[in-house]
């Protein structure tokens, strides 16, 4: 830019503060941007505004008592954090979850995945200046919220799972409603694509923006849809199977660079659309094949897993979530750590921001699907 300017025209680097309250930052987070006109030299993320010391709380409230707190780690897809915590405790104590319980877990989490991806897709529209797709996506998400509310009484922070299974079985008539919803979803996704994804403006705005190479993605520990968008075929549900996922047939979509480079923002965005279809596939199989039986294993109220430690990995909507739990044999965990997808995704933004337009930073954040509470915990 400086080369084309008149020699007498003095330019200087500008430091810009974006956030903490900024509509497109998905929660409270801040960037300090050094920019040359519209082009960023670097954007340095500043996080921690939503730090609620959830890991410290775990050490004070005990194993059962921590379950509602896990909802707050990532309130957009709280089922996965529930499941991660439940699985970590079960692995420590060697508890077997009843099969129907596992099916309930898969059904609730996959619905939650669709809800979370719908929000991502809608927010992507809003962040690049289109309000309508957001409202359309939220309309469908509301229906899932209604379904889940019927299941567990809450719409966002579910507290549905327990150590050893889930709290309640499906209510009568719920299965039919859920199947009806899935029939409704398929044409709606086609409508979204026609309305927004394949819209020329959307493609021009997202394609070729901030591509990530597969090697970088692994080096920065990107997970889930962000990793798959870079062409790495890796899904914890398939590759380190947990719960009853081996029972189901589904594909793992990977980024192919259909509209530009592999691993660009468009690929990351489309990953969410493809994954919703796969989740619907899993849900159909799970809802039709559900076995009978109890949903919750017998777990003592005074839960004391033997001393030891373990890590479990759950494929959440924002990718591989790692729960690391250390037990000292008492009724309170000695240490709990959760490594979340958004934390890693934020770590790569500083590198990607170099040379990007300021308006594209918003696209980058939205396409990485960063949720602020999940970074800060």
């Amino acid at each position, binding site marked *: 830019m400086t080369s084309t300017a008149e020699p007498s025209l003095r330019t200087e680097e500008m430091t810009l503060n974006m956030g903490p309250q900024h509509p497109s930052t998905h929660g409270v987070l801040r960037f300090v941007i050094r920019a040359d006109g519209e082009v960023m030299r670097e954007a340095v993320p500043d*996080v*921690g505004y939503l*730090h609620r*010391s959830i*890991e*410290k709380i775990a050490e004070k409230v005990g194993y059962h008592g921590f379950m509602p707190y896990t909802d707050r780690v990532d309130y957009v897809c709280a089922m996965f954090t529930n499941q991660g915590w439940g699985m970590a405790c079960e*692995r*420590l104590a060697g508890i077997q979850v009843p099969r129907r319980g596992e099916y309930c877990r898969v059904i609730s989490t996959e619905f939650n995945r669709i809800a979370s991806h719908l929000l991502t897709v809608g927010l992507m529209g809003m962040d690049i200046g289109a309000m309508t797709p957001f409202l359309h996506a939220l309309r469908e998400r509301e229906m899932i919220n209604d379904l889940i509310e019927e299941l567990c009484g809450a719409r966002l922070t579910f507290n549905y799972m327990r150590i050893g299974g889930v709290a309640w079985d499906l209510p009568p008539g719920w299965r039919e409603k859920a199947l009806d919803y899935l029939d409704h979803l398929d044409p709606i996704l086609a409508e979204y694509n026609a309305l927004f994804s394949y819209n020329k403006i959307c493609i021009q705005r997202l394609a070729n923006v901030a591509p990530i190479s597969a*090697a*970088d993605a*692994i*080096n*920065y*520990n990107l997970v889930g849809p962000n990793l798959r968008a870079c062409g*790495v075929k*890796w899904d914890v549900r398939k*590759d380190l199977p947990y719960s009853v996922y081996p029972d189901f047939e589904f594909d793992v979509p990977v980024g192919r660079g259909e509209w530009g480079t592999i691993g660009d923002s468009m690929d990351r965005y489309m990953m969410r659309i493809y994954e919703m279809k796969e989740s619907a596939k899993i849900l159909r199989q799970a809802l039709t094949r559900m076995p009978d039986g109890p949903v919750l294993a017998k777990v003592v109220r005074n839960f004391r897993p033997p001393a*030891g*430690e*373990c*890590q479990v*990995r759950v494929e959440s909507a924002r990718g*591989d979530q*790692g729960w*690391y739990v*250390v037990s000292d044999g008492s009724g309170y965990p*000695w*240490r709990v*750590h959760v*490594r979340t997808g958004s*934390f*890693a995704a*934020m*770590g*790569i933004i500083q*590198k990607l921001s170099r040379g990007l337009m300021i308006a594209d930073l918003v696209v980058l954040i939205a396409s990485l699907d960063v949720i602020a509470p999940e970074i*800060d*915990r």
Partner: protein
Amino acid sequence: MEALQIYQRLRVRFGERVLETIEKKPDPFVVIDPASLVEICRYLREDPELAMDCLSNETGVDYKDYIGLVYHLFSYSHRHGAVLKIKLPREEPRVATVENIWKSANWMEREIFDLLGVNFEGHSDMRRILMPEDWLGYPLRKDFVEPQEYHGISTVRESPIVRLDQLKKDQHKKT
């Protein structure tokens, strides 16, 4: 490769510097000498049969008599993982950074520094990440005492239940 086979290879290659192997279920792990952490990590990453290309998780635990750091490594090409541990003294714990081997360590080490007070030598950006920059102490240490206030903002709130109980008691005394 199974985790135990990987640890066996490490023992053969590094001998005494691999301090102990704990084969306890569910996750066996290996404790190594902090001084040779970078060397062992580099070997794990660069040996073609191990190829640990991802540092999946790095975190710390305060065990009261020492600080433990845990490294969960993973290889996308071979689909296997390993758990490394090091033990550091509680007074001024410091260890070399692995940021130059795995970039994801940058933020995770900042978090450990912030919450447990471990200094990573050679780290490019050793600042607090979650807590405010002027925060005193390391919250995930077991002996951390929460301050009563922060910049004039109280961190404690009087419980209305306790107050009502006290009122009742006072009334009881009067009558």
